[in-house]
């Protein structure tokens, strides 16, 4: 067995770091953060429990950027690919921050509180980069920008039981919050933001609250959700977060999307509103749309024995044509799946591909994504 390495002491910590350790979380370095990769139940059980009942995730490491002022909407609309002007109060949208080349600086969710108040929720590993980019693009607009990442904790409660658990802790009628809508409200007496959003492909909520109330909310949700019973909520680590989002066909920054990929190549054309008006990267993306993308992100299922992993090469007819961006077992589907970039002429359901798994060619087939869709 290879020697397992210890984590470095100077990693960033969320307010729940002690809680994770007390629960027996196995801590790892995730983009400079000391985070639980799994708890004693294990990744597979955490994954299945989320699909069948509920899972609770600490996502406090994600970043929040507050944008206020008369030009808030116009300012953010100019920097992102989706159409911010379409939002109403209490609505959120998934979008990308793009470079002039049309490539992706980050994927994020924009929350509209009011016409003069937006909140951008960005990835943990790119928070600093995004903040610098956004700040550097303010030139005369009437906006006030604040990096409020340290002020917030964020908990994601996901799964078919998420609503019934959370409803016990709030007077806000949760069934009135539709998908990608949110409201201010209190959870267990803590004022925060409750949004019906998530990264698992299940129904669920994300709760944003003051960082110093994180432990209270975390413990209360686990208690109220009957952690420790066979159908109760389980705390879930980053490994389960990854297998859940992969089954749901969701991109992970640094894998499916980065500063070398465009939304059009990554199946994110639906959040790329080229007709909305000008935004950074619009021209390059319009050109790419006209010419057609040369490569495309596809989902695949491994058909031979073996598990495809990140960064392994994809071969078609003996030629190296692309790369796996994310590869892993899928605990709910009980298959081995992945996402990969292939030349557009091969980006068709049914296309047979091979993956170089540490020197052995393993057969796979392009399939439709998402791999998993929850029952309505």
């Amino acid at each position: 067995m290879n020697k397992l390495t210890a984590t470095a002491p100077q990693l960033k910590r969320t307010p729940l770091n002690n809680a994770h350790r007390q629960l027996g979380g196995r801590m790892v370095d995730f983009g400079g953060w000391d985070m639980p990769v799994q708890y004693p139940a294990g990744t597979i059980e955490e994954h299945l429990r989320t699909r069948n009942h509920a899972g609770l995730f600490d996502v406090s490491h994600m970043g929040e950027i507050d944008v206020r002022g008369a030009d808030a909407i116009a300012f953010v609309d100019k920097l992102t690919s989706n159409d911010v002007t379409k939002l109403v109060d209490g609505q959120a949208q998934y979008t990308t921050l793009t470079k002039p080349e049309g490539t992706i600086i980050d994927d994020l969710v924009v929350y509209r509180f009011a016409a003069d108040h937006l909140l951008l929720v960005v990835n943990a590993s790119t928070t600093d980069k995004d903040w610098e980019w956004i700040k550097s693009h303010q030139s005369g607009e009437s906006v006030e920008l604040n990096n409020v990442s340290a002020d917030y904790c964020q908990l994601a409660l996901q799964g078919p039981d998420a609503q019934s658990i959370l409803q016990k802790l709030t007077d806000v009628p949760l069934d009135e919050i539709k998908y990608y809508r949110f409201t201010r409200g209190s959870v267990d007496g803590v004022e925060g933001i409750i949004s019906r959003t998530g990264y698992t492909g299940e129904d669920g909520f994300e709760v944003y609250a003051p960082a110093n109330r994180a432990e209270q909310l975390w413990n209360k949700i686990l208690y109220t959700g009957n952690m420790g019973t066979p159908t109760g909520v389980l705390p879930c680590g980053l490994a389960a977060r990854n297998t859940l989002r992969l089954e749901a066909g969701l991109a992970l920054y640094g894998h499916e999307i980065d500063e070398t990929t465009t939304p059009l190549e990554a199946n994110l054309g639906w959040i790329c509103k080229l007709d909305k008006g000008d935004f950074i990267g619009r021209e390059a993306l319009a050109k790419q749309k006209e010419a057609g993308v040369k490569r495309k992100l596809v989902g695949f299922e491994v058909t031979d024995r073996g598990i495809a992993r990140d960064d392994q090469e994809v071969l078609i007819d003996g030629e190296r044509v692309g790369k796996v961006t994310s590869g892993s077992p899928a605990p709910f589907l009980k298959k081995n799946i992945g996402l990969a970039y292939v030349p557009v002429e091969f980006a068709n359901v049914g296309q047979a591909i091979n993956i170089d798994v540490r020197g052995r060619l393993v057969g796979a087939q392009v399939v439709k994504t998402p791999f998993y869709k929850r029952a309505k």
Partner: protein
Amino acid sequence: MANVPEDLHYSKDHEWVRVDGDQAIIGITDYAQNSLGDVVYVELPKAGEEFAANEAFGSVESVKAVSEVFTPVAGAIVNINEALADEPEIVNSDPYGNGWMIRVKMSNPGEVDSLLTAAEYEDFTKAESE
């Protein structure tokens, strides 16, 4: 606390060896399976293949990672545990019993004497965890 049976020999790579005449049965320890998490795939060699001491004979995969497994003793594969192809999770539930991986005809049976005893392995894993 991880289980460390008295009657086995151990390596610093967290494999165990059960001696059966001039043959050795090899698997990974309870400490190793616990560190790995859910085992989802085991890659094993074929009967007849030969390995030097400390050479990688296969790999064990968890959801997140791939780990090589090394044979603490030199020899040729007599047979492998076919059950692990369909039920890799036996490595987690029964690492010293039904989770065995390979049976090897040892080229040098004396090699087991230089492996760790149960007590030495237990001390070793305690030091590693600190």
